Each structure stands twice: as C-alpha cells, then as structure tokens.
C-alpha cells in the first residue's frame, strides 16, 4: 500500500513497466542498428543473392519443364507480353476512335446550330 502511495504500483505493474521499458529500449536499439550503413550493405547483398538464387532456381526448373515439351514460365511470360503489346495498340486505337467520334458529334452539333 505504501508503495502504491509512493507511485511505485503493484509488483505486477512494476514488472509491466519494466517490460515496456525494455521493449522500448530494444525498439530504439534495433532502429539504430538498421540505420547503420553496414546493415544497409548486408541487406543489399542479401537481396542480390536471394534474387540471383531465385532466378537460377526458376531457370533450372523452367529448363527441365521445357525439355519435357511443356510450356514453362518463360513461355507464358513471353505470351503475356505479346498480349500486353496488343492491348497497348488496341487502347490507342480505341482512344483515336473516341476522339474522332467526339469530333464528329461536335461537327454535327455545329451544323445543326447553323441550320
């Protein structure tokens, strides 16, 4: 009771306060750690390595797959890119058609207004 009046709180509250303080200190320490250039280099190298290993693994599986005369990821990507190119062209044609349609509608309105 005396402790509580002094602001120290119950043992449970003290443990909790201690835990939160430790958590806050750990958070600050880790934030300092990740802001170091050396950590940045480590992360960058790890990213490069993971990317390379991923690519090698995919290529190996893809090679095996294609030798079985089955469409691999690379084939699907190539096909998707062709579809994208077609869609790009279609979009531009559609926009031209819409512009022409708007122009024609405007001209028609102007003719109506004149007559």
């Amino acid at each position: 009771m005396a402790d509580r009046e002094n602001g120290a709180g119950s043992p449970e509250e003290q443990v909790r306060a201690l835990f939160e303080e430790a958590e806050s200190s750990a958070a600050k320490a880790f934030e300092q750690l990740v802001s170091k250039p050396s950590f940045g280099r480590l992360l960058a190298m790890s990213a490069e390595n993971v990317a390379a290993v991923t690519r090698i693994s995919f290529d190996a599986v893809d090679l095996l797959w294609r030798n079985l005369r089955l469409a691999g990821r690379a084939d699907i990507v190539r096909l998707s890119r062709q579809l994208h190119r077609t869609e790009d062209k279609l979009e531009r044609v559609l926009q031209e058609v819409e512009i022409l349609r708007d122009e024609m509608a405007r001209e028609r309105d102007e003719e109506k207004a004149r007559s």
Partner: protein
Amino acid sequence: MSVLERALRFPSNALEYTNILLTTNDAVIGASPREVVWTHRETTLYRYRSSNRRYAVPVLLVFALINRPEIFDLRPGSSFVEFLLGEGFDVFLVDWGYPDEEDADMGLDDFVCDELEWAVRETLRASGQDELTLTGWCIGATLCAMYCGLDRGPGRRAPVKNLVELTMPIDGRASDYAKWVGDDDFDVDEVAEQWGSVPGGAIDFANKMLKPVTNFWTTYRRLWDGVQEGTARPEAYQTMAKWVADNPPFPGRAWAQWIRLMYRDASLLRGRVRLRGRLVDLSRIDMSVLVITAGADHIAPRPGTMPFFDLISSRDVEHLARPGGHIGLVAGSAARKELWPSIAEWLAERSDG
C-alpha cells in the same frame, strides 16, 4: 485484473487471440460498391457513385505501387472513399493491379505517361468534366506530381484543378532507405533483372525492417494486451493486418528507376527527370495544392516533402502538418474526425459545389 484471474482467463484469451490472427484473411476490405470504368493491362479505374453528389469536380484517388489501394476504402465506418461520397464528391480510384513478371518492363514513364494519363482521361470522360481533383498517396502522390509537371507542349497543362498530396516523398536521401539502397554498390538494375518484378513480400519485409521491433513484435503484443483487457477491436486489427500483408510485386524497371530518382539522384528536385523524353518540371504545377505531411512518418519523412513547396508555382497552396505515421495519418481511427473533414472542407471550396 489479478494474476490468478489472468491465469484462469488465459485459455479463452489464447483462443480468441489465435482466432483473430488465423481469420485475418477473412476480413472484408474495400467493400464500398463500385463499378469498373476502364481497364488496361493490370490497371483498373473504378468509380464509386455518390447518392448525394454535390460537387461537379470528380476526385481521382491514386495509391502507391506497393500495397493495395483498398486503404482508401478500408472498412465501413473507416473508409475515406465512403466519407468523400457522404460529403457529395464523385470518387474514382486507380488500381495498379498485381503486376507480374510480364510487367517487369513497365517503368515510371509507363505509369505516368500511359496508365495515369489514360485514367485521368477516362475519369473526365465518365464524369463529363474538364478538370478533376488528383489525390495521391505515398508513391502515388509522387506519380501525381510528376504527371502534373510533365511537359505537354506550349500552352497545354494537365487537366487538374486541385492536387492533393498525402505523405509524398520527393527527396528520400535523408531516409533510412537511402542508407540501404542509396549506395552505388547495390546494383538495382541487376536485382531488377534477376527478379523481373520485385516480390511484394521483399518490399514489405524491407518496410517492416525500418521499425523491426514495432512491426514484428509490438503489434502482436498490443493485440494480446487488448484481448486480455477486453479492449481488442478484431475488425480494426484484421482489416489493417490484411491490407498490410497484401503486397503486389513492384515492376522491376519502375523499382530501379524509383530507387535512383528518390534515394540517389533526387533528380525530381533538380528538374532532371525525363519521361519518354518529356521533361518533368514541378514548376508547371500551378493548380490549387494541398500537401499533407505526418510528423512521425518514417517512410516519407516530412523534411523529404518540404522542398516541393519551393519548386511549384501554385499561388493557392496549403500545408497540413499533422502528427501521425505514414499510413495511420490518413487511415487511422482519428483521421475520420480530424484529417478527412479538413480535406473535404478544402476540396469543397475548390470543387464547383
């Protein structure tokens, strides 16, 4: 609550806690009714219709290339889209979709000169207006600034009446990201080429590593405390957790360009960015501008946004400097009462009501 009480309640609390974590994916986000206006490649333009539309100028929302735009419409009662509709705005949203390996060749030029340009065009066509309000968030805000600053030939400007920029990075050289990827030793082109599109999980991991203890530990500890004390809001936790975990890949070419532009050269500041040969000059931004920055933003720190004000030529500029984090500022529980009304008020005066 005594220790004994806690011990007795532990099994049911543990059950509730695991239930919240395990059913996170069942949470419904982006539930407001919407219709598809236009699609191209992975991009989709949606329209949310307001039943009490009061303002003519439509609002086009543009989110970052990482994470999903559903953050604008997180859940009923906590949705910026729903709020804008209630205020009487005609709301459109650009969704960049889930770019995959076949989209690896998409660069920032494709997003600004094609996808965003065309989304603006379709928004204007659908709404029957000549100008709109462009609202960008995070990378989306930078893309919007680039779109408005793009060279369109003599006497031609972007059809944007108002530009609203939420937590926008313009110069990232002072951020922790720059310490990780700003060095030339890190070969961004090589990584982009190897990966094609950079996996969303990798970008999410990097984002979380900025505050590792908070993201990997404190979030879950707080949820546990909430469950123990009976104050946990499962819906709020689950919708945000589901959104955070939904990470589309970042097209490799755009990612490499972004790293160079933001964390190495700060070329936007120097007016050296060219997209398909067209110069991006931020001094072309002459429309009404509202910039919102967050005091505790570790992803786009406020000092990295401030140079924007010296670059633009707008006369009607307002800066709302608020406390809060990169996402919490606009999507947090306090935003509905504090930030959103300020944005709506600013827009209302400039949207031909």
